[in-house]
């Protein structure tokens, strides 16, 4: 399936949940509603025509314009096609629905996105920090992150 076909079938099924799409990019992407990612993901995984059974990557991004986002790189082992999904949220309301129940691999990626960007993953089974200590403050990959002077009595900057 081409990206256009995927977009069409998504639009047919979910309508306004598909916010935006850019199909002429080298790796075409579709922007979806952050609160409906799970059902879209289930559809993409289970629909015989799309069958995106393999999530290559899930990345959090800070777009440096008040927007945070999660980028899903999907791949179908059966059909050998790829698509990129994106879901955006604002820094004030950083909520995106979890897709862990669809692709189990998303679990740790989403925790990482939470850890690094502070994106709250709704419906995530175990949303804790993953890389940084539990008592760490702030989300370091945000563009406006300030490195703390001390952590637990240890000086952080050189």
């Amino acid at each position, binding site marked *: 399936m081409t990206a256009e076909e995927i977009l069409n079938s998504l639009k047919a099924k979910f309508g306004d949940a598909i916010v935006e799409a850019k199909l002429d990019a080298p790796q075409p992407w579709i922007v979806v509603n952050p609160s409906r990612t799970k059902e879209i993901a289930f559809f993409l995984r289970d629909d015989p025509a799309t069958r995106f059974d393999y999530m290559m990557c899930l990345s959090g991004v800070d777009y440096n314009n008040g927007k945070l986002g999660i980028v899903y790189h999907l791949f179908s082992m059966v059909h050998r096609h790829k698509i990129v999904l994106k879901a955006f949220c604002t820094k004030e309301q950083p909520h995106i629905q979890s897709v862990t129940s669809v692709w189990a691999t998303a679990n740790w990626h989403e925790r990482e996105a939470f850890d690094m960007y502070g994106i709250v993953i709704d419906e995530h089974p175990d949303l804790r920090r993953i*890389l940084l200590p539990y008592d760490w403050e702030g989300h*370091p990959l945000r563009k406006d992150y300030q490195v703390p002077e001390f952590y637990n009595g240890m000086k952080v900057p050189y």
Partner: protein
Amino acid sequence: MGLLDQRFENGNVFVTSLENLLNWARLSSLYQMQFGLACCAIEMMAASASDFDIMRFGIIPRATPRQADVMFVAGTVTLKMASRIKRLYDQMAEPRYIISMGSCANCGGPYWEHGYHVLKGVDRVIPVDVYVPGCPPRPEALLEGIIKLQEKVRKESLVKKPA
């Protein structure tokens, strides 16, 4: 009593030969704590493998800090790990020695500037005896570090240092 807790006022033949014996034993049998952190740990493993054979120096890996004499801090120490390293160091039985292996453990290495989660030098949490530079140091460098440590141990003394 604890002879190693005592300090003699001045050394005589007996004290110095005892001191030599004890130091010789300590430096010849440095049990290493089985503990690696990052890239340098691979070089540390290479050093303990057949080609470099760290055991020639009497270094045997022990899994628990209670029985270890020397800890190679081989790799980047992160802030999350630092407290654990401190705890492990604490739990080692004295006399104990630390070799800081690699730039990261020495000073933060390539992560010194933007590494918000990297401790810039393990000597900020535990005392280090020997620093081995390199990113990562070759196994030979680690062996050199061990020899340096042995020299340091050899110079330890039971006699009070002149004030």
